[in-house]
Every structure is written in C-alpha cells, then in structure tokens.
C-alpha cells in the first residue's frame, strides 16, 4: 500500500442502513495525480464509496486517511475543500454566475482563501468553454450542461487536490458530456489533480490510462491499468 497515497482506505466497511452492508473490509490506495474510473452495477455502492472519501458518509468500520492523516483528525470542511465532490445533478443557487462562483468564499472556513477577481473568474470560465456566458447571467437560466461545468469550476476555485465526480454526465447530452469528460481529463493531465470518476457512458480518457476500481458483490477491486 503506497505511503505517498493521497487517500488511503484501511479495512473499511459501509452500511447504508442497519444490516444492509454495501461493502466490507476494503483496503485500497489512491495515488496523487491518478485517474480512476469507478465501475459496477447500479446499487453496488459506487456513490457511497465516493461519499465516504469526502466524508459525507461515515464507514461503519475501518479508517480513511488523507495524505496520511486520519479523516477523524481533520475537520470535515477542511477535508472537503481538499477532496471535492461533484454531485450527479448540478445544483446552482439563486443569483448570477458570479454569485455562484463566489458562494464558497462566503463560508467561514474559506475566508482565508484569496477571493478571485472578475478577470480570474472570466479566465476560468473561458478555459472551460463558457466564453459566451457573462458573469452576471442568472445561473438558473444556464443549460444543465453549463450548470454542471459551473459547479465544477466553483469547486475548482477552492484548489482541491482530489476531485470526485459522481456520474457528472448522467443528465447531460452527448456534447455537454464530452466537454465535462474532457475537463476531467485535462484537470488530471495539466493541473495534476487526482480524479475519481463514476461514468456509465463507458467513458475512457484519450491520453491517460485510467485505473479501474470495480465495485461488485460487496467488494472493491482495483484492476490493473488497461
């Protein structure tokens, strides 16, 4: 088990409700800068696995570590800022694109972070194919695909080292899905982010060889790189 892992799971088990174990005694390491694809049948626990890694859920047994530090020794907001979780369905709040992008900086735990100015926000939007979207546009008026990109960009502004993508393309059309998938690959390749992604579309990165984590029958298996 790699000592330089960014996330390490040690003998973790997870029960969604009392008596319904999704997986048990799982140990695996996530290496920094890696691209991981999580696969498995519906209801096998793929989303729960991702939610455990940013502590939206708690394992019933075992320990998770972030860069060698047990999760329990970090505050949840501190961990979640480092291990960003992007939900399946994009959720934007009332207000403009800019309001949404700056929303995380209103939280007490993020107030020490430098507040991005308009030119920085513009630059990030442009980088992710949102050149046509003005900062003052109402976020709820964006298409679902644009909202999903906005959600990803909003999280990226917190400079996470790991990005967990929970079927981010499930509600998107092919064109938007491709943009989001390319974004994920580019973040891994060019920004050195660790990406752990659930994808039903049979997505495969163009240039990176992903590591497959298979969730099946209560077990998590890391398959060799294809």
């Amino acid at each position, binding site marked *: 088990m790699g000592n330089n892992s960014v996330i390490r799971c040690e003998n973790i088990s997870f029960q969604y409700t009392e008596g319904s174990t999704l997986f048990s005694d799982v140990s695996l390491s996530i290496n920094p800068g890696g691209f991981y694809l999580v696969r498995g049948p519906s209801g096998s626990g793929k989303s729960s696995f991702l939610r455990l890694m940013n*502590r939206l859920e*708690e394992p019933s047994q075992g320990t998770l570590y972030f860069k060698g530090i047990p999760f329990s020794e970090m505050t949840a907001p501190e961990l979640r800022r480092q291990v960003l*979780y992007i939900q399946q*369905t994009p959720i934007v709040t009332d207000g403009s694109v800019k309001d949404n992008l700056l929303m*995380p900086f209103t939280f*007490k735990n993020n107030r020490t972070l430098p507040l991005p100015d308009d030119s920085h926000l513009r630059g990030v939007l442009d980088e992710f194919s949102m050149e046509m979207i003005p900062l003052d546009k109402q976020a709820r008026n964006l298409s679902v695909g644009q909202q999903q990109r906005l959600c990803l960009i909003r999280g990226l502004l917190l400079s996470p080292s790991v990005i967990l993508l929970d079927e981010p393309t499930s509600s998107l059309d092919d064109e938007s899905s491709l943009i989001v998938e390319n974004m994920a690959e580019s973040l891994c390749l060019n920004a050195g982010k660790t990406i752990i992604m659930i994808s039903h579309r049979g997505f495969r990165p163009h240039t990176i060889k992903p590591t497959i984590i298979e969730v099946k029958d209560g077990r998590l298996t890391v398959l060799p790189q294809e």
Partner: protein
Amino acid sequence: MEHHIIDIGPYQLAICLIFVVISGIASIVYSLKLEKDLLIGTVRTFVQLFILGYVLKFVFAMSNMFLVIGVFAFMIFFAAWTIYGRVKDKQIHFFFPVFVSMLLSFFLVAFLVTAVVVNVKPWWEPRYFIPLGGMVIGNSMNAIAIAIERLIGDLKSKRGEIEMKLCLGADSREASKLLLQKAMQAGMIPSINSMMAVGMVFIPGMMTGQILSGSDPLIAIKYQIVVMIMLTGSTALGTLITVLLVRNRCFNKAEQLVLKPD
C-alpha cells in the same frame, strides 16, 4: 354601572348541544364521516374543561408557588409531547430538548409579563400566571410544530443543496441557514398576521371573556395588547430555540446530514 356575571346553568349548557346536532346532521347528509369525531370532541370539551375548572379552583385556593410552577411545567410537558406527536418524521428525537427549551423560554416570558408588565404581586399569582402562561404555551405550540415540521421536511427534500454547500466547505449552520430562516418564518407568520388583524377582523377570546365578565373594554384592550405582544415574543423565542436545537440534532460532528430520505 354594576355588572353581574350571568352564570350558565346546566340546561342552558345542554341547549348548546343543538349546534353539535346540526353539525352532526350536516355530516350525515353530506357523508363527511365526522360524526364520531364530533361526538368525541364534544365529550372531551366538556370533560377536559370541567377538569380544568376544578383544577384551577383548587390551584387558586391553595395559592402555592410550587404548585403553580408544577401546573405550568405539566402544561408545557403536554405541549412538547403534542408537538413531538404532530411532527411525522421520527428520525430525530427532540422531545426532551424541546421540552426544556419551552420550559425556560415560556417561563421567562410569562414571568416578565406577570412580574414586570402587569405587575402582579406575587408574580406567580395563579389567577394571572396560569391563564397567561397557558396562552403562551397554546399559541407557541402550534408555531413550534409548524416550524419543526417545515425544517425537517426541507432538510430532507433539499438534501442535495445542503450537501453541495457542505462539499464546498460550509459547516452545517451555513449549509442550512436558508432553511432555518424559512422554518422560522413559517412558524412566526401566523402570530404576525394575528397582530395585523386583531381588532379589525376578530375580537380575541381573552378580551371577549374579560368584557363578558364585566371589565371595562379599555382595560380589556390593554391586557389584549400585552397578550398579543407576549404571544409574538414567546412564539419567536420558542421557535428560534427549538428550531436551532432540532437543526443541531439533524447533523453530526462530522457535519453530515443524518436525516435519511424517505
């Protein structure tokens, strides 16, 4: 002008039942299936209010501070139990903290009104403390139940939005701030609406009672103003404290929403 209170005799009381009979007939004719509830409700009204009358007579006669506080605490216990029963979702056990917070906040409001505003001596004089305290409990109970129900419902239905904020570094307070505000508003709006309509749309029960028992309407309105403001204050205080307590129980130390979806 001397005013004699007209007592209502048993036969006159029985005549009132004619209204229940009319309601019962309407229920049968239109198949409302409310006859049984009407009957039970009528019997309970008679039994509960007669018991209350005898209890109040006893408490007034004893004139004992601890007895007055005991009756007040019992009424709050019953109100907290009613709230717990009315909130459908039982994932969060909030009976005890709600009871304690209602006890403290309602006692504070009732004490301030009797001791400072009305200036009753002693402050626990049962003829003042129990009816005023009872109004505080009765009104705030509905507001608290509405607010808790709304908060728990919203926390479950807007789980995605809360978790989105948690994922972006918010703590549970920040993530649920908007829902807390909405729950507070839902609880408080009926009391504020009452303040808007009082005297124009309806004459409140307490004021009616005072006028019927011979009080000068100008004295009655002053009591009513105190009561309206007291009720709004106790509703705000009670709703705020209980909603905060319930919200805290909906999240754990790891800032996870512990309420599971239906």
